[in-house]
């Protein structure tokens, strides 16, 4: 290609970034929010008290399941901790004849949340932070496999955009310390560079490890090369104790808390997850997994116990080097191991990544506006990008703000409430898209950004009145979570309002002025050439 390596990579950077930038923006926003998944699970169920005694919750879960599904095929319990709203339990009924196993997973009538007192939680029905986690790779309203391919292709594009972006930069180190404000295109470029370079190791890490989380889907060929049945690889990578057959002889299930205590003593670390096969039968077996919050790798070790005597019967073998590397990469991506300080760094780096994607998308239009033959009537492609930018960058966060409000305002007894919270997000986003279509972007940008800021800013105020026991009051009893979420909302509200005001005050440079000011743009380096 004419102009050498750097120019070719600048071209690649621009177009790979633009094509899937909008998907990447959604993935970045929801992934960043999902670093607070557990915290939001609790924040969005303000009725629930903080879990103080996880073992009492587990005992309550065993009691509940014993009454609700005494002869189930299996139970699973995710253990509670101070961050989570309680213990999430699932049960799988005995399969009917001819019914495929595993078909019932995720059904809402076979799950429950056990609260801090060990009772079935009476809280509003919500997906909580789990929504952001799932949307991050499954999107919504579409088959998850399509969504994962779309997100996977976008991630590969992202990897290419990052690598070609690095090549494009002559002065990567100087760019990092350069922010020329109020300079139009130059400022957008500086902002894009600053957010990209500042957290560059994070962006590279999160993109590559994100691909690794989807590699079974995206890169099955390495498996096909060695296995005629890929399930055999799964059995090696995720070993489980040999399956048990129901004997039909009833036998009481061992006290699960004693098994968890035993496993935790052996690991010297907390357990996170528990599975019971054939509860109430003489063949019952319990598998305890170590908490992913206690270790880097996502491949958590497991112990299996006899469900009647409580004797340990099986331990997972330590994974091999490659499997452990993959597990560590997935662990680093999800950040479950991160303590609060590190979690904040993850979150802030995610915000930087979101700004990087957004500023890159805006830069595409800023750069081309100057060169338009008639800026008053831009060509179709330009208008499409411009309006998609408004719709996605300003519209989606508005939808997220509306989701948080729907979580507060939808009637608690509403049917399908959890789904409606999510529908509200998409309804608001759809309205934003219509607005972006029919009105000038100079009007819609500040309108949407300002509305998002107002909604986020008013939510903590509403919480103060609606849930006097949460928020500030919870600080008094040493529980910073609800107040922390509210304070973060306020900070983002201030940011959104400030940006909206800047956009309102912005006067686009008059043509004559830009011509005068275009001299320094002429000698700009290669990254502008595309």
């Amino acid at each position, binding site marked *: *290609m004419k102009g050498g390596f750097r120019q070719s990579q600048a071209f690649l950077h621009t177009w790979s970034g633009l094509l899937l930038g909008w998907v990447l923006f959604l993935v970045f926003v929801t992934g960043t929010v999902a670093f607070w998944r557990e915290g939001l699970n609790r924040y969005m169920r303000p009725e629930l008290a903080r879990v103080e005694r996880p073992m009492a919750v587990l005992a309550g879960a065993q009691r509940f399941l014993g009454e609700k599904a005494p002869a189930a095929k299996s139970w699973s319990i995710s253990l509670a901790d101070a961050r989570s709203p309680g213990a999430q339990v699932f049960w799988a009924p005995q399969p009917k004849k001819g019914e495929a196993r595993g078909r019932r997973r995720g059904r809402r009538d076979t799950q429950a949340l056990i609260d801090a007192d060990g009772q079935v939680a009476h809280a509003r029905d919500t997906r909580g932070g789990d929504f952001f986690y799932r949307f991050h790779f499954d999107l919504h309203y579409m088959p998850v496999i399509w969504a994962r391919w779309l997100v996977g292709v976008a991630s*590969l594009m992202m990897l290419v955009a990052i690598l070609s972006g690095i090549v494009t930069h002559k002065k990567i180190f100087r760019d990092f310390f350069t922010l020329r404000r109020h300079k139009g295109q130059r400022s957008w470029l500086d902002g894009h560079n600053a957010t990209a370079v500042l957290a560059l190791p994070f962006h590279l890490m999160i993109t590559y490890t994100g691909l690794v989380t989807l590699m079974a889907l995206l890169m099955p060929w*390495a498996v096909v090369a060695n296995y005629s049945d890929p399930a055999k690889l799964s059995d090696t990578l995720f070993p489980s104790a040999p399956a048990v057959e129901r004997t039909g002889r009833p036998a009481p299930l061992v006290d699960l808390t004693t098994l968890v205590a035993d496993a935790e003593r052996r690991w010297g670390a907390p357990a996170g997850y528990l599975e019971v096969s054939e509860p109430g039968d003489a063949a019952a077996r319990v598998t305890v997994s170590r908490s992913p919050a206690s270790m880097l790798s996502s491949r958590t070790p497991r112990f299996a116990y006899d469900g009647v005597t409580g004797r340990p019967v099986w331990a997972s073998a330590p994974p091999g080097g490659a499997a452990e*590397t993959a597990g560590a990469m997935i662990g680093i991506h999800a950040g479950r191991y991160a303590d609060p300080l590190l979690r904040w760094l993850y979150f802030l780096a995610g915000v930087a990544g979101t700004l990087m994607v957004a500023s890159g998308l805006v830069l595409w239009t800023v750069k081309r506006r100057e060169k338009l033959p008639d800026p008053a009537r831009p060509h179709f492609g330009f208008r499409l990008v411009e309006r998609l930018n408004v719709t996605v960058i300003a519209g989606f966060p508005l939808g997220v703000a509306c989701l948080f409000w729907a979580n507060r305002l939808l009637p608690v007894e509403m049917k399908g409430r959890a789904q409606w919270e999510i529908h509200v997000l998409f309804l608001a986003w759809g309205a934003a898209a219509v607005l972006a279509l029919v009105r000038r972007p100079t009007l819609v940008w500040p309108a949407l950004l300002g509305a998002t800021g107002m909604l986020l800013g008013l939510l903590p105020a509403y919480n103060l009145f609606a849930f006097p026991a949460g928020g500030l009051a919870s600080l008094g009893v040493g529980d910073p979570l609800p107040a922390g979420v509210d304070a973060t909302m306020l900070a983002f509200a201030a940011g959104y309002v400030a940006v909206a005001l800047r956009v309102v005050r912005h006067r686009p440079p008059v043509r004559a002025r830009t011509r005068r000011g275009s001299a320094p743009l002429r000698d700009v380096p290669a990254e502008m050439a595309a």
Partner: protein
Amino acid sequence: MTGWRRSGDMALRVVAAVPLGYAVGSVWAMALARLLPLAAAEASVTGQLVAFAICAAAAMWAFAASSGWRATWTLLLIGGAAAAMAWTSMAGGGRL
């Protein structure tokens, strides 16, 4: 280059970068899975872990090469070499 030649060259680079880039990453992942002196599971996972870097490098090369044709045939050659190694090894049997 004239307008049409230029568009054709660009289209060829896009094909070289996206479907061909993915294919090159995939066949190298297969070759690594077959030829690394590791247990099958370990070699397969290593191939998967490395594949995305190969895909990205192939996409960058598709645009860095002096022409779209050059990008295409070099990638075909690099991918073909891996495909030959993987195929030879798999023809010898030993899949689980």
